[in-house]
Each structure stands twice: as structure tokens, then as C-alpha cells.
């Protein structure tokens, strides 16, 4: 896979991007930020004269999704940061998305208005009531074209169901329900009902002193509406079947790789904590990310992953420093391409990595203004591990910038277009040569 075309979107002074998500067709791309704002980009339709201008993303709509709140009972501020956005499959002309902060999930309707009625009998063009005596004949109002307006309105607010911080939301394939997960519980909602939700997973111990494990991510199966998976801070994955019982505390399958006793260190558990889990589009595999690796699991094999990819193994000898500066707790997300043949995840120094599952080749790319000129090909980067021979243009481990982390990435559902969030900048890279998935 070679990314040759590119598009840089610098949001400048805006807040740090906290989530990125394509909709189901890839026509729209939503980003959420630390300030509670959502920006939606729309892909320009192809067919323009200049070949490279087709298919670029432009701002479609911007709105304030969440505001900071104050919980007076606990004297705590609830952050407005958008943790996740998930699109609903499109069912009519309007688009719907779910956005969530730490506590409250909201359903937003995004619709277009490009016509307005004109020729009212009782109102004039400015909307003022006409004097009836001036009306001599009746006319039928007609719809006239107007400048496109994108209207966003909140349709539902799902509040007060989470004691702990919401880390995931996932829309069910039935398009009627969705789940929301916090550190200790997972709730099932009906999209039309806001005053109650159904608790389907609860791992809170009776005595909080016994708490040793939290939920880190959760997702519904792409087409089996009864199945969902959740990951934990101990590196386990649990597949649950909602048909078996109402409270899915007992898993159907438990995916866990046995620990190598000779490799155990004080940091083993922390680096095994799963920061993201994603079903493949085929529904056959799971992709997980922990601190140093990305793993592909086969749903039919619970005792170990199918494939393990080293994202930045050169950090293994630096774990103590990374613990000290808290980087070891960074939660990186991961993504599949549309055909499930390539996986992608972020790293430090604005690097992100892609692994081709078939050819076993991998590449490190950088998302930065300096290295990205218009229409230039993204040059593969290399991190030189300490002790090995350093080539020209290599970056040494010690000069990596740990403040530049790519935590959020997304891949277009059908084409080789990727969205990379680098702090407060959004990069959209396209592979013009190979736009079809392989």
C-alpha cells in the first residue's frame, strides 16, 4: 500500500482531537475534540476536471456537542471532551451520529436543507403578516432552491447511566440498540428511549478494595446482533452472547495469551492492558492494541492471538522512564482497512504504522506538515533502535518526541483513505494509485 496523494487539514488553534470516525460509506468523516466540538468533513464528489482534486474532504458542519458540566454533589467538573463518535447506518436522507463525553451520550441528526417554500399568501417575503385586504388572489407556495444549509439538532440525550467514565459506544447491527461502556459497566440502550438503559455487564466488585481490573473498550459484532466483545486492563478479551442470559457477566469466550514467565516484569501487566478492540469487517477476527503490540485474534481460537505485530518494540527497554512520565498509560487505537488485509495504529513522534497481514510487510509513516507537501508521496520512516547501525534519515529512539502521539486513526470503509489525528491537526491521506482495496 503506498500513500501518494495527501491532504492536510490544520485546525490551528483548535483543541486536541480526541476521536475520528468515518461513516459507513466513507462520504463523511467526523472528528471530536477536547473542547466538546464535533467537526464533520464531507468528501467532494468525483468528476471534477482536475484528476487530483476529486475526492477531497471539506468541512461540512461544525457544532458544539457537549459543554463542560459541574457535578455539584461531588464538586467535580465533567469534561466536555468527546471520547467517541459512532455513526448510525444511514436510513434516510439525514445522517445520525452518537457522540459521548465521560458521562452523557447524545444522538445528533445532521440534515441538509437546500430548498425553501416561497409564495405564502398570508406572509410576505420577509415573513411579516400581510394585510388581508391586499390579498386579491391565492397562490400555491412553491419550493425554491436556496444555498445549502446543514442543520444539526440533538435528538436524544442519554444521561445519568454511568458512574464511571464512558470509554466506548457501539451501534448494534440491528440499528435499534447500542451499547455504552465505562470502566466497570456496560449498558444497552434503545436509540428511542433515553430514560432507562439495561445493564449487561457489571464487573464492579462488592468491595471496591478488591478492584484489580477495569473495562477498557467494547464493541458489537458487525452483523451478529447478539454478540459483543469487551477488553480489560489485564489484557483479556471477553466475547459475550446476549441470548445466553440477561446479565452477561459470564463470557461465552475468553481470549487471553498466556504470559511468558521468563519475560515477567513489574510492567508486564500495564503493557498488556488492551487500549482498543475492533472487529474485522468480516466479523471473523478481532484486532487489539496494547502498549507495544497490535494483535489479530481468530474468534475460534481463544488461547493465543493469530498474529502479533510489534509496533515500537524499541520502547521495551524504556518502560521505566515511560512509566515515570505516564506515557505507558497512553491509549492507542487501531484500525482495519476495508478488506481486513492491512491494520493500522499510531505511535510516538507523529509516526503511525501499517502492517500488511498477507505480505507481512510493515511501514512507518509520519504525519507532519514538514514532511507532507501537496501531492508528495509519504516517505517511510525508520526508528533506529539503540545499538543498531544508524542509517541516514533514521530517528534514534532517544530523539523521539513523546508529546507527539497518534492515538486516533481511522480507515475509510472501502477505499485507501486514512484519517490521522495528530494532536490538534487532522491529516487525510489518500492512495491515488491503488484506490481499490486488495
Amino acid at each position, binding site marked *: 500500500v503506498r500513500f501518494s496523494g495527501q491532504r492536510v487539514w490544520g485546525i490551528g488553534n483548535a483543541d486536541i482531537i480526541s476521536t475520528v470516525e468515518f461513516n459507513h460509506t466513507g462520504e463523511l468523516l467526523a472528528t471530536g475534540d477536547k473542547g466538546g466540538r464535533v467537526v464533520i468533513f464531507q468528501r467532494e464528489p468525483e468528476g471534477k476536471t482536475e484528476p487530483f482534486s476529486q475526492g477531497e474532504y471539506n468541512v461540512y458542519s461544525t457544532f458544539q456537542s457537549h459543554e463542560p458540566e459541574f457535578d455539584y454533589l461531588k464538586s467535580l467538573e465533567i469534561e466536555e471532551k468527546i471520547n467517541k463518535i459512532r455513526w448510525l447506518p444511514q436510513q434516510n436522507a439525514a445522517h445520525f451520529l452518537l457522540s459521548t463525553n465521560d458521562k452523557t451520550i447524545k444522538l445528533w441528526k445532521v440534515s441538509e436543507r437546500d430548498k425553501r417554500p416561497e409564495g405564502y399568501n398570508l406572509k410576505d417575503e420577509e415573513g411579516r403578516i400581510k394585510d388581508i385586504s391586499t390579498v386579491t388572489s391565492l397562490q400555491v407556495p412553491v419550493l425554491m432552491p436556496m444555498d445549502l444549509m446543514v442543520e444539526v439538532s440533538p435528538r436524544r440525550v442519554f444521561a445519568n447511566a454511568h458512574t464511571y467514565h464512558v470509554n466506548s459506544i457501539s451501534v448494534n447491527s440491528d440499528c435499534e440498540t447500542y451499547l455504552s461502556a465505562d470502566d466497570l459497566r456496560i449498558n444497552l440502550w434503545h436509540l428511542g428511549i433515553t430514560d432507562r438503559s439495561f445493564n449487561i455487564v457489571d464487573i464492579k466488585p462488592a468491595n471496591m*478494595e478488591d*478492584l484489580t481490573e477495569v473495562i477498557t473498550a467494547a464493541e458489537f459484532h458487525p452483523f451478529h446482533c447478539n454478540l459483543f466483545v469487551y477488553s480489560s486492563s489485564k489484557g483479556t478479551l471477553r466475547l459475550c452472547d446476549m441470548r445466553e442470559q440477561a446479565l452477561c457477566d459470564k463470557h461465552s469466550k475468553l481470549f487471553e495469551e498466556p504470559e511468558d514467565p521468563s519475560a515477567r516484569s513489574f510492567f508486564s501487566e500495564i503493557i498488556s492492558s488492551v487500549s482498543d478492540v475492533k472487529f474485522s469487517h468480516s466479523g471473523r477476527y478481532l484486532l487489539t492494541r496494547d502498549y507495544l503490540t497490535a494483535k489479530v485474534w481468530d474468534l475460534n481460537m481463544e488461547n493465543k492471538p493469530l498474529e502479533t505485530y510489534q509496533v515500537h*518494540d524499541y520502547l521495551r527497554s524504556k518502560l521505566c522512564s515511560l512509566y515515570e512520565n505516564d506515557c505507558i498509560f497512553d491509549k492507542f487505537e487501531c484500525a482495519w482497512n476495508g478488506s481486513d488485509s492491512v491494520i493500522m495504529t499510531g505511535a510516538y513522534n507523529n509516526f503511525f504504522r501499517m502492517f500488511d497481514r498477507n505480505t507481512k510487510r510493515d511501514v512507518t509513516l509520519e504525519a507532519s506538515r514538514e514532511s507532507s507537501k501537496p501531492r508528495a508521496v509519504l516517505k517511510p520512516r525508520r526508528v533506529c533502535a539503540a545499538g543498531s547501525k544508524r542509517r541516514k534519515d533514521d530517528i534514534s529512539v532517544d530523539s523521539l518526541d513523546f508529546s507527539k502521539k497518534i492515538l486516533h486513526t481511522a480507515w475509510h470503509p472501502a477505499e485507501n483513505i486514512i484519517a490521522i489525528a495528530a494532536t490538534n491537526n487532522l491529516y487525510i491521506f489518500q492512495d491515488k494509485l491503488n484506490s481499490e482495496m486488495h
Partner: protein
Amino acid sequence: MFPKGTKRKFSDSADDPAPEPATPLQRQSLLDMSLIKLQLCHMLVEPNLCRSVLIANTVRQIQEEMTQDGSWQLMTQALAAAQCPADRLVASELLCRQTDPAAAAGGPKPYALVGEAYQEEEEEEEDSEECASEGEEGEQVFGTFEIKHPPPGPDPALEELFSDVDASYYDLDTVLTGMQAAPKMGPYDLLESLSSHGRISSFHIIYYSMNTTEARTNP
């Protein structure tokens, strides 16, 4: 594309080809760092539960290893010796009170810091039945640790003890109840006190509680 070579255990030196077990000094340093992080957790507006749990588990792991080779006992004894008798009495009083009689554990442990912070959260959110039992426990915790405003009536002797209390007990408040209080002691002061072992600090109380717990459970 599979892991090559052996994984390193706890070493910042990238030049060594073979894995090294953590030295006692490295282990102690990691313990100190972890406890500071836990204390800072509780000073934040809303601690990140995942991070707190992972750090607490790391502390527990270190404690287990140190208990196995006997160094934990040595450390707690050294710290206990540095305390004066009156304080020791207060410490065990405080901590015994706080323990829920129904709880299996003998007493609070460092990693219980995580639990306490979130115990109070649950009191408002859950339904009334649960609220009653947890509320009791919560009140017990707050009643005991409200040093500035002692609970009306229950124990005049304890109140008297607290009237002379060292400023560092306010830090105990912060640490063990997870309440957001103005820190009287920053993390670096804490580090100083940990290394000097001269001044009584909240962590000494925690270490002492470990000793007390073990004395009760391992006669």
C-alpha cells in the same frame, strides 16, 4: 515479524543483551514512584480509574515480591521504629475504624486507595438499598477522617488526640479518602520524607498498616 530475543525485565540500559531482574534499589524507587502517583491520583479532580488500578496493582506486585524476600518486613519495622508511640496508637485506631467489619481483608492496603475514592461516588448513584449499606461505610470513613471537624460525640479521646495532630495528617486525609484537599505537602516533599524516613508522613502510616495487618493475619 514476531518477537525476537528475550524481553527485558526492568532495565533502562539498552546495551545489555540479557534480561536483568530488578535490583532492590530499582524496586524501591519504583515503589516510591508508584505511591506518589497514587497520591497525585487522589489530588486530581477525577482520577483516571484505569490508571489508578494499574498503578495499585504494580504496588501490590512489588509488595508481594518484597514480602517474599523479607525486605517488606524490614522496611515496615524501620518505619514503625521511627514513629512515636502515641502516633502509632492513633494510626491503628484510625485504620481499624475505617475497616468495614464485613470485609474479608484485615485492613486497608495501599491499593485500597483506589477503592476508597470511588466508594463515595457510588453512594449517590446506586439505588437506595445499596446506598444504605455503602453509605454507612462511607460515613464511617468520613467521620473518622474529618480531622478539621471531628464527628460530634463518638470519641472524645480521639478528638483530644487530634487536637495536637501534626499537619501531615491532612495528607492522610487526602490519600485515604480520596477527597480533594489543598495539599500541604507536594510530591517532592513526600519523596524527601520517604528517603529520609525522619518525618512521619502518610505513607509511613500506610506502611505501618501493612505491618499491623500482617501481625493480625500472620500471628
